[in-house]
């Protein structure tokens, strides 16, 4: 009986989390959540920083790739699918390097400010 309740609860929890994600996504899409200046180091700058563009692309690519890979693999052994071995080094290096470059440029930009 508790197992049935657990399943129903899981579905309800999934609905709540889905609604939460949908609310955030809708507010991202309708502009309520401010996205202005995502690629700029400062609001008064006009030039897009290339490393920000790189990191944005890497983030979206890594997120989508991992999600679709995870869905296709499933969890047969009770373990969430890991990043594929042939991609792990490259993906983590690209993400780590992209983030390091972003932080370095941000640091140098802030240091250069009056």
């Amino acid at each position, binding site marked *: 009986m508790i197992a049935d309740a657990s399943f129903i609860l899981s579905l309800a929890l999934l609905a709540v989390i889905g609604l939460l994600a949908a609310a955030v996504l809708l507010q991202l899409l309708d502009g309520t959540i401010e996205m202005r200046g995502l690629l700029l180091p400062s609001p008064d700058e006009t030039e897009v920083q290339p490393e920000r563009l790189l990191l944005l692309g890497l983030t*979206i690519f890594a997120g989508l790739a991992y999600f679709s890979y995870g869905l296709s693999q499933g969890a047969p052994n*009770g373990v*969430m699918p890991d990043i594929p071995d042939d991609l792990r080094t490259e993906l983590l290096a690209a993400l780590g390097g992209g983030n390091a470059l972003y932080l370095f440029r941000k640091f140098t930009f802030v240091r250069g400010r009056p």
Partner: protein
Amino acid sequence: MWLNPQLIALLIAVVVAIIILAIGLTVVRLIWSKTMDLSMLLTEVTTDGTGQQQAKASLSRFQFLVFTFVVAGLYFVLSLESGYLIEVPNGTLVLLGISGVSYLGSKTISSGANPPPAQTSRQTTTSEPAAGTRTDNGGGNSNEPAGTGNGGQGGGSAKPANVGGSRNKVGSGNTGKGGKDGNQT
């Protein structure tokens, strides 16, 4: 019959579950009705070329949000499919860790560039004229920390935030009687 342990366990489980779901639904409802304001979810305060503080979206916050949704969504879907809570491998934790460290690093850099309003206010207060000189803060309590609505008639504490854009309201509340430059968090 009423002392059946399984029945009691089921009742308690249902009550606890209803409470948790009610909290979740309340949060969703508040977000939906925009009572819980998410407009600053991705923004950080930066200093522009003129030294004024402005709000803009942060890429590291966005990355953190994306990876959180991806990992949490995948975990929940696969757990539901398996019927039990699955384990998270190290590679996924590294993925989350990279974005978390990047977010912390970004926040550290930003906060190093923008000192907190409370410190700015305290520095200004201590540099005010010496004893015997009346400092007019409009009746506001100058010992109050910034952000608590220390409303002076334009006197006293510093104004840390002048945020551009109609929706970008950050910084401490320096509002009150005559304080028309109040910023809301």
